């Protein structure tokens, strides 16, 4: 009986110390991990700061203006060129025309009252999507 008690307590001590060491190592590795994470967070913050500054620098209005004048046919907006969405005329295309030419059918302007066309044409009726190759499907 006494032997058993001693053996049991020794076993217990061994188990507990094993657990304790395990815990201690775990804590150490977690702490290392934490330090590494904190370092990488602060590094990333620093990088983000630089990238934000870079972004702002590359998007200076004068740079955008010079790029726009170089690559886009845009000039000053005349008052008649300004309109709101309601003023844009709806493009109504007869479905029959499109079926014959096998042209992708544009969707109507999204709006609350929109109802999908009842008499859908048979055959090729697809909404335009971009294919992986780069063309329009």
């Amino acid at each position, binding site marked *: 009986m006494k032997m058993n008690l001693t053996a049991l307590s020794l076993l217990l001590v061994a188990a*507990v110390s094993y657990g304790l060491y395990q815990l201690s190592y775990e804590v150490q590795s977690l702490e290392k991990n934490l330090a590494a994470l904190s370092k990488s967070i602060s590094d990333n*913050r620093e990088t983000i700061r630089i990238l934000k*500054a870079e*972004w702002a620098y590359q998007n200076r*209005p004068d740079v955008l203006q010079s790029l726009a004048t170089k690559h886009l046919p845009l000039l000053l907006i005349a*008052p008649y060129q300004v309109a709101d969405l309601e003023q844009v005329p709806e493009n109504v295309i007869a479905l029959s025309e499109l079926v014959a030419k096998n042209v992708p059918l544009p969707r109507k302007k999204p709006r609350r009252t929109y109802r999908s066309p009842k008499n859908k044409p048979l055959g090729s009726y697809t909404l335009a999507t971009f294919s992986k190759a780069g063309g329009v499907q």
Partner: protein
Amino acid sequence: MSELTWLSKSRRPRLNLKNPLNVHNFDDHNIALRLEGSAKETLEQGRNRLVMAGVVFAFCFVILAGRLVGLALSGESDRAQAFPEKSDQRPVTYADGMRAEIRDRNGVLLATTLKTASLFAEPKNVMDRQELASKLSRVLEDVSEAMILSKLSSAKNFVWLKRNLTPTQQYRINALGIPGLHFREEEKRFYPMGALVSHLLGYTDLDNLGIAGVEKYFNGQLSGSKETAATDLNLSIDVRIQHAMRDELTRHMSMFRAIGAAGMVMDVQSGEILAMVSLPDFDPNRPNDFSGDSKFNKVSLGVYEMGSTFKTFTTAMALDAGTIGLHGGYDATKPIKKAGFLIRDDHPKKRWLSVPEIYMYSSNIGTAKMAIDVGPKKHKAFLSKLGLLEKPSIELPEVGAPILPPRWNSLETMTISYGHGLSVSPLQLSAGISAVVNGGAYINPTVIRRDPAVGLVARQVIKTKTSNTMRKLMRLVVEQGTGKKAAANGYLVGGKTGTAEKVEGGRYKRSAVVTSFVSAFPMNNPRYVVLAVMDEPKGNAKTHGFRGAGWTAAPIVGRLIARIGPILGVMPVEEESETIKRAMFVPINSKGKKVASF
């Protein structure tokens, strides 16, 4: 005591308590210790205490061990309670001890602090100086080989080679792998927009302390302190509008060979300044490369005699005080002679002029007479209400106080009525005009983005009815008067020209003028005040040699409004439509034609 040696287990001395009567049994060899009487009692007591203490300790250790095993196995504790995964608290703002950012009203970065590496060398540890210099000068384009060599040949242990490298440069220098080169991390204030918002932002010194502009005014907030974290600043500026303003001013400045220009755009409902440009300007990234002249903020610090733009205030005052109505008028046939001064018209009509005509043709004579009818005291009080007589309060350290005449009698009232004898800053003029057109409420201008939810402090200075009339009169100037070149079709621009001779050494200098055009749009419900000022413009062939505000300042405003209107979300209207024409109608009531027909 020789018996108390370590014996085999069975022969160890032990107390035989079971048989206290056997104490006299000398035959028992197992008994090595004989206890009697009080000694025996003491020993027993001690043994009991030992057992008790053992039990207590064992209990404690069992609890500890159990807890430890439990923790090791489950890995959980009360932590989940201490740090709940979802909490109502907002994440704590990250304080890195760096100076905070400045952004525009849309969140575009205007100023930030970056950690940069600065390159230094220890000449003693450099092995091949010639090689280092040639390699380094290839990476750092702006540092010559000879300069590096001369720095390396100094006797010092430490020489700066280049401060504040870009990350790419640092990478390339690292890639060179030359011993004796080291980096030190430094903080550098960086302004991505360059010279665009220079005067407003200001700049910082080497220790990153603001010494001009909002950098100085909000230095405490931006740099933070021990108790408070550094917090970002959101200005009311919109970089797109700021750029449009700077672009137009630069273009016209070179066109008219002006020595300077200034301009601002202000929201009349909130007092927020959307653009504030003063030319020539500087790059806050390297303020030391620019002269003091280019660091002078003409909008807030400079005070000028604004000329005829002041007629807006005089007319508003006379209409508000009721000394004259829209149908009334004054005789502007002859110049006024007073105390050796001669008040003449720049665009003389030499006849009786109605109030709209006086304003539209910018008659000095008519305006002076209008102001005399109101009187100097009321005139002074009125201008004071519009914030034109004291230093304006704005979140900038560079604010100029107006220059008032030494006394204010009828002569001064006459000259000030058309903008001479009182110098104010363009900022004050814009704030005053915005009060005149926005329905008559003076709102303090600000460079900080205002929360629309927070109420404004507005001070009613003129009647709403007067403000309505003034809108129409300002529109008339652009439609038919001196400011036709400011018309941005569709945006219902209204405004007033102002040309003032510069004062130098107490005398007016005929050769140098300051031209200005102050405007608001759209005039049926003004939302923005736009001001453009040109310092010493010269006429050119396109303007037929004229240098007046109608030729040099009004076109800036016209082009600018056409540019910024869509950005600001102002819907263009059909100016010739019946509703707009009716809303903008003002009876001119000219008697002059009848006189002329005779």
